[in-house]
Structure formats: structure tokens, C-alpha cells
């Protein structure tokens, strides 16, 4: 194992060194801007990216944009190695939860004031770029989870938690072999979705500015209890089956737009749609997607920000976000191009208007996986009450972060 891990690191570093060269070669009168992004999902997406690139070069004579595309699964490892080896690109895509970490150690540059008009962007998406209240990047696309519902079992999607519970009960009562809803699990994935439910009860996860943990308070406890309450009408024996919702074994599930294509492809007969998540007091949801940042050790920072404005402009953002498999973060683009999204995607467009960024805490991924996920699991398995699970989790998080309250 030692061999394997260290070997992998060495290979990754070597590869990064090989591929990331030439970040700043400047011939007379010409400037090259290097941009790293995820590999294209489809050939069509590649064409869209190419068009956006050539448009930018036409508008900026003497500028060449070199786009390096890297498979999503390898991206973070490769980027990490490039940072360690001082071979970073000028500008590149960055996972949302990594922005705080990269900002903390000065790997990326702060967005210069006045570069963009913040009101052009959805607030939730823009906030995923904040660390200590300052912006360190721009969102390029965003995504979220929403409520998938089987139209045969769910005539009208529930809007509130009470309606959700009633609907789930009704489905399971009508046919005990069918679960009401696939209740998320207490794993890293479930813990990523859960804050959207907490915000739906008017709650917050943390207060970064005052170093306060808030996910042990009533709204969060209610949010966890909602999942616990849904379990009797949504037995795990049914919902743990592979593709339970697509197979018609569950009336509803919480998932993201990536499942729309899969279900349509593999289960063409399933009649389903997507609605925003039910809420208790306030419509709300979680957020995922990609940001783009400018690296401190890269070149041509001004040009890099200009490129990111180009990607996130009202004109280009919809097609670029669609190429990435997400949704536009530019409000004008989202509004104007809503019609270009399919029936099921409308639910996500609606959901994203009320998306909340995850806490801007550098250690958040670890807290998400190692503390919140087990707490959710403990409550869902009935080992402890929701309140107890979250109180314990908050205590552990405070100890890890060194926060007092």
C-alpha cells in the first residue's frame, strides 16, 4: 500500500509536471492564457467550449487561450500536484468546497473590487466563492438537488414538510411494496444534501463570522427529524434497492440533474418530473457545481478575470453551464434561456434561485464526511435522538475547529 500511495503521488506529480508546462510563454505581442477545466461530457459540449474560446480570442487580439481538459476524477489530485510543483495554470475550475482552503493558504487571488457586478449572479452561487467575507473566484455553473416524483404515484408534488409526510404515508399505505420516498443516507452524499433541508426550516449550519455552530439548533433538529419521520413509510429494504425510484419502487427521491438523463435513457416508460424541495418555513436548497479561480502563481491575472467574465456573461453562461452539465449562475442568462431547458430541468432552475452555499470553512469536507454524516446515520438508525446526534456532532465540530460556541 505504501508503495501504491506513494507511487501514485509520484506519478501524479510527474504527470502534472509534464502536462502543465508552458503556463506563461510570451512571444512578441502575443499572450497565452492557460485555463484548466473538466473534460467535456459530450462532443457537443467540446464544440460549445471551442466556440466560446475563439470568440474571446477574436475580441482580444493577440491573446491565445489554451484550454487543458482533465477528467473530473483526477482533477483535484492533479491540481494539488501542480500547486505543489509550482506549475499551476493561470486560471482554472475549482470545486466549491476547495475555494476556502485555497484562499486560506494564498493559492488563489482575491477578486479585485469592481471586476463584476455582484447582482448579476445568483447569491448562493456567488457565496460559494467567499472566504472571510471576500470573493476569491466566480461561479461558472451551479447545480442542486430537488424532489423527483413519480407522476403516477404523486399527482401534485408536496410543497411543505407536512404534505411530504402525508404523501409518503399515502403511497406506502396504498401499496406496502412501494416506499414513499428514498430517504438520503448518513454518508457524505446525504450530508451534502441535508443543509438544504435545514435552510428550509429557516436554519443555518454555522455562523463563520462569529465562529458559531448552528446545526445543533431547532431548525436543524427538525430537518433531521423529518428524515427520521419519513422512514416508517419508506423502508430501507425497498429504497436500498438499486435505482429504486426509477424502478417504480419509490414515489419520490431527492437527487440532482445527473439522474434525469440516466432515468430517461434507461427507464423511458417512467413518467416523472422534478419539483423544488418541500420546506417548512422558507423555500431553500443546497448547491453544488463549479467555480473558477485565478492562481496566485499564474500569469496575466487581469486577462484571467476577463476570461471568467466572458464565461459567466449573460451571453455565454447558459451554453457553458449546459456544457458542464449544470445551470447558469448569471441571472439574466437563466431567465432568458429558461426555455432551452427540458421539463424536468425546470424544477432545478426553480430550486437554484433559493440555493444556499455550504459553510466557508476550510475543513468543511471532513466535517461533512466524518462528523455530520455519522450523526445523520445515528439518528436514522434510531440509535440516538436527532437532538442528541446533532448535539454530539456540534461538540465534535467545535473541538475540531477550536470554536467556543
Amino acid at each position, binding site marked *: *500500500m*505504501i*508503495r*501504491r*500511495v*506513494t*507511487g501514485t*503521488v*509520484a*506519478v501524479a506529480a510527474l504527470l502534472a509536471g509534464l502536462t502543465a508546462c508552458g503556463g506563461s510563454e510570451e512571444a512578441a505581442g502575443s499572450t497565452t492564457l492557460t485555463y484548466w477545466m473538466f473534460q467535456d461530457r459530450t462532443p457537443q459540449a467540446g464544440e460549445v467550449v471551442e466556440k466560446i474560446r475563439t470568440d474571446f480570442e477574436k475580441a482580444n487580439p493577440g491573446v491565445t487561450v489554451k484550454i487543458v481538459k482533465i477528467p473530473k*476524477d483526477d482533477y*483535484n*489530485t492533479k491540481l*494539488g*500536484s501542480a*500547486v*505543489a510543483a509550482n506549475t499551476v495554470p493561470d486560471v482554472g475550475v475549482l470545486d466549491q468546497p476547495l475555494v476556502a*482552503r*485555497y484562499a486560506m*493558504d494564498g*493559492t488563489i487571488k482575491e477578486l479585485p473590487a469592481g471586476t463584476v457586478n455582484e447582482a448579476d449572479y445568483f447569491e448562493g452561487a456567488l457565496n460559494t466563492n467567499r472566504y472571510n467575507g471576500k470573493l476569491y473566484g466566480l461561479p461558472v455553473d451551479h447545480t442542486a438537488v430537488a424532489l423527483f416524483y413519480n407522476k403516477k404515484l404523486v399527482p401534485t408534488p408536496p410543497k411543505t414538510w407536512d404534505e411530504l409526510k402525508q404523501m409518503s404515508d399515502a403511497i406506502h399505505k396504498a401499496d406496502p411494496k412501494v416506499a414513499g420516498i428514498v430517504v438520503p*443516507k*448518513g*454518508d*457524505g*452524499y*446525504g*450530508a*451534502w444534501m441535508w443543509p438544504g433541508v435545514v435552510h428550509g426550516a429557516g436554519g443555518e449550519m454555522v455562523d463563520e463570522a462569529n465562529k458559531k455552530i448552528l446545526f445543533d439548533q431547532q431548525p436543524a433538529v427538525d430537518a433531521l427529524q423529518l428524515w427520521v419521520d419519513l422512514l416508517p413509510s419508506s423502508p*430501507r*429494504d*425497498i429504497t*436500498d*434497492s*438499486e435505482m*429504486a425510484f426509477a424502478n417504480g*419502487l419509490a414515489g419520490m427521491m431527492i*437527487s*440532482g440533474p*445527473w*439522474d434525469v438523463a440516466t432515468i430517461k435513457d434507461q427507464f423511458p416508460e417512467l413518467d416523472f418530473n422534478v419539483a423544488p424541495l418541500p420546506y417548512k418555513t422558507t423555500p431553500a436548497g443546497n448547491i453544488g457545481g463549479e467555480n473558477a479561480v485565478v492562481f496566485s502563481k499564474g500569469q496575466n491575472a487581469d486577462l484571467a478575470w476577463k476570461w471568467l467574465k466572458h464565461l459567466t456573461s449573460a451571453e455565454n453562461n447558459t451554453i457553458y453551464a449546459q456544457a458542464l452539465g449544470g445551470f447558469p449562475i448569471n441571472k439574466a442568462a437563466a431567465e432568458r434561456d429558461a426555455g432551452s431547458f427540458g421539463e424536468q430541468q425546470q424544477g432545478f432552475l426553480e430550486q437554484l434561485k433559493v440555493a444556499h452555499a455550504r459553510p466557508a470553512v*476550510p*475543513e468543511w*469536507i*471532513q466535517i*461533512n*464526511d*466524518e*462528523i455530520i*454524516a*455519522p450523526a445523520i*446515520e*445515528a439518528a436514522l*438508525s434510531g440509535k440516538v435522538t436527532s437532538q442528541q446526534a446533532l448535539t454530539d456532532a456540534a461538540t*465534535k465540530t467545535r*473541538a*475540531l475547529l477550536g470554536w467556543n460556541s
Partner: protein
Amino acid sequence: MASPVVADRPAVTPRPGRRRRPGFGRSDRLVGYLLITPALIYFVVFLLYPAMAALYYSFTDWNLRSPASWVGLQNYSDLLFEDVKFPHFWKSVQVTVQYTLIAVPLTLITALGQALLVNAIRRGSNLFRLLLFLPVVTAEAAVGAIWRWLYDPQYGLINAILGLFGIPKQNWLNTPELVIPALAFIAAWQCGISMIIYLAGLKGIPDSIREAATIDGAGPVQRFWKVVVPMLRPTTFYLVVTGVIAALQVFGLVYVIFSAGGGRSVTGGPEQSGLMYVLHLYLFAFRYDAMGAACAMSFLLFLLIMIVTALQFKFLKQEAA
């Protein structure tokens, strides 16, 4: 590398009279070194250097981006004693040891059983050998996907077969108590390499010994326990040692089996019941930005494997009897 050291000496053909070891004169030695140079370079660049670098980084706090800062033994002491920073470290040790204790014997018993069967049949043994070996050469991602379906609580084949014997449906991969046995069963299914080695061991038992035992009146059961098992002892010892080393490092399968939906977060199954040591290490190295701690974990595992292997050499019988 070794070649320059040799190269500065003239390659002379040794005089026949002075030659002590035939075939190993200086020029032959040079050729020999040249021949092993690629392997040596590989060893140094891809194994020795990274391992030494990992040892160094295990004494540092390093996130892959900022310069590593020396922290001495802190990573090690935090891993062993600091529940706040590494809440699931000991859980991952426990899970891995449990898995090893179940998977290794199960794999060996399955492999020996398969080897005996393949050895016994007269026709088509090549075909069966191939079929039994296939799980080993199947891509791990495919194996994981297939077994997710086999263990499916609603449609899974495993539950269907158990149902024939009146055993109720189980939610294999989502019940904490069942996760390790379920994973060990997959390992046993993938026992092809052990099966081939056992098969070679079986072929190495001289017929004369079996015949002698038969003449002395030993039945098949007695022949198995008194002749085959003792004669296979060196093979079994080898398989136990390598099997334990491999089981302590299992990673790919759990990574695939517990990766959820659209999310890439892998937290090791329900209530961390499948959080193998190396999966835990991987998460710290590449997900939680703690490469220093991950390197320390890899060295702790190295120490554990060394101790376990030494104990096996000391206490297990190695010689055929």
C-alpha cells in the same frame, strides 16, 4: 545507479586459471548489472524514493500545496490518541482486522476446495480453471457494480438463493453487521490466484505417497487430512502470509461498492462499517487535504504488516510434514 561504478573498471576477460566462479567474470558482471538496471531504476524512482519521501512527509503537516512543515511525531500521536482529529481511525483498524480474519480463511478454504475439484476432474479441467480464474482478471469497478446487484435487497440473486432455503431477505450492504461478511464473500469469490497455487501444490504431491497411504488402508478423508493438508503446508503458509498482507490493504472494491449516486463522497458504508484502513487513508490524503497524516497512516500500516508477518513466520508451521 550501479553501472558507473562498474564502468570505471576496465572490462577484462578473466584468465581461466584465476576464475573461481565460472560465468561471472567482470564483463559478465557488467552485462548483469546492465540487465538489472531498468529494474533498479524502476525500484529507486517509483518505490524507494516515494517510500522515503512518504516517510519524511509523515513527520510533517502537508496539504500538497503549501510547503510541508515539520511536526515531528505529532501525526503519529494524533492518529493513535487524538479522537477529535481522527474520529474513525481505530474504527478503520477494527474493520480491516475483522475483514482480514474472515476473508483470508474463507478465501483459502474456497481456493483449496476449488483446486481439489479441478484436480479431480479428468476432462475439461482447463475450462473450469479458466472460469474460476475469471473473477481475478475482471476490472474492480465491474466487480463492484455486479456485486451491488447480487446483494440487492429486492432483486438480488444472493437473497433469491437464500430464499430457497427459507432464509429471509437481507439488506447486505446496508446492515452494519453484514457488510464485512458480504465483502469477505466477494474476496473468496476472487480466490483464483490462490486456487492456481494450491493446484500446483496438489500436483507436487507424489502419487507414491498417496498410493502408500491407500495401501495402508487410509480412506479419502484420512488421505486428505493426513497426506494432502500436511504436504500443502508450505503452500498454505505462503498463501496465508500474502493473503493477510493483501487483505490489510484492500481498497478498490470498497471504494466502488460504497460510492454513492452522483456524489463522489465515499464514507465507507453504513455507520463506517466498511471503512477499510486504506480507504480512510485515501480520504485524508486526497479529500481532507492531510497528506502528512496519510503518510503516517501508511507507515503505521507498514509496521503492522511487518509485525503480523514476523509473527506468522515465528508461529506458523512452514515445512511440509
